[in-house]
């Protein structure tokens, strides 16, 4: 049995899982900061 597909699948799946783990908080942080900044700008305009 050739082992290559199993090794390849292991590395690809692990990379995908780690990429998700690393990127998801970065994207959420960016979105949250943007949202907070917008709100702040909005509030300052009202004052």
């Amino acid at each position, binding site marked *: 049995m050739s082992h290559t597909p*199993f*090794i390849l699948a*292991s590395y690809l*799946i*692990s990379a995908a899982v*780690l990429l998700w783990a690393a990127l998801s908080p*970065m994207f959420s942080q960016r979105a*949250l900061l943007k949202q*907070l900044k917008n709100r*702040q700008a909005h509030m300052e305009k009202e004052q």
Partner: protein
Amino acid sequence: MNRFILFFHNTGSPPWFYRFSGKLIPWLWLGFAVLTVIGLYMGLFLAPPDYQQGESVRIMYLHVPAAWLSMMIFGLMAIMGFIALVWRIRVMEVLMISSAPIGAAFTVIALITGSLWGRPTWGTYWVWDARLTSELVLLFLYFGVIALYNAYDEPRKAARAASLMAIVGVVNLPIIHYSVLWWNTLHQGSSIGTSGSGIHPSMLWPLLIMAIASKFFYGANLLSRARLQLLKQDHRKRWVRELL
């Protein structure tokens, strides 16, 4: 104040933690990147195939570090949960709950790579032996901690409940570790123990480097998740407004 106590005190302060971790994260990612490049090069190109498993031994460089880390993170969560429950340090609560998705991710990696190694080596993707089953239970415990935390509106109460579950769930760790000794399992015993290692140095070095690299990943990822969590909780507080 003594420098150590000052550090401890500061760590408990969200604005200070936010600033400090922001400076630390790039260095942790750098450490992870450098070690991973070295470890993968050694593991995939320099290390020889195994005399029995052939090339599929290369899956070990992912599987073993992920499995180690999946257990270590749960143990740390129990310790952080304990500190959070007793001293009510909010940053500790945030660190505890931010660890859970990372631990779950590494458990998933350990289970999938183990399964992909098992097919060519054992002849099966999965068996219900004590080692594999207890590692699957660990994944459910991570999901349980996350679900319990999300079931509460109030983050501090949520963290206390989740901490309690992490502390209770820690009984699973010795079961995972000793399963291969206590019961007949398909999974082999530990290669690395107090009596030395059953792994040839040419394979052991890439394995250890990958194991250290995975800890850097955990550190960097944990801090960015904890920062996000703090921002969410404190978005109405002054330090966040000043930050913007």
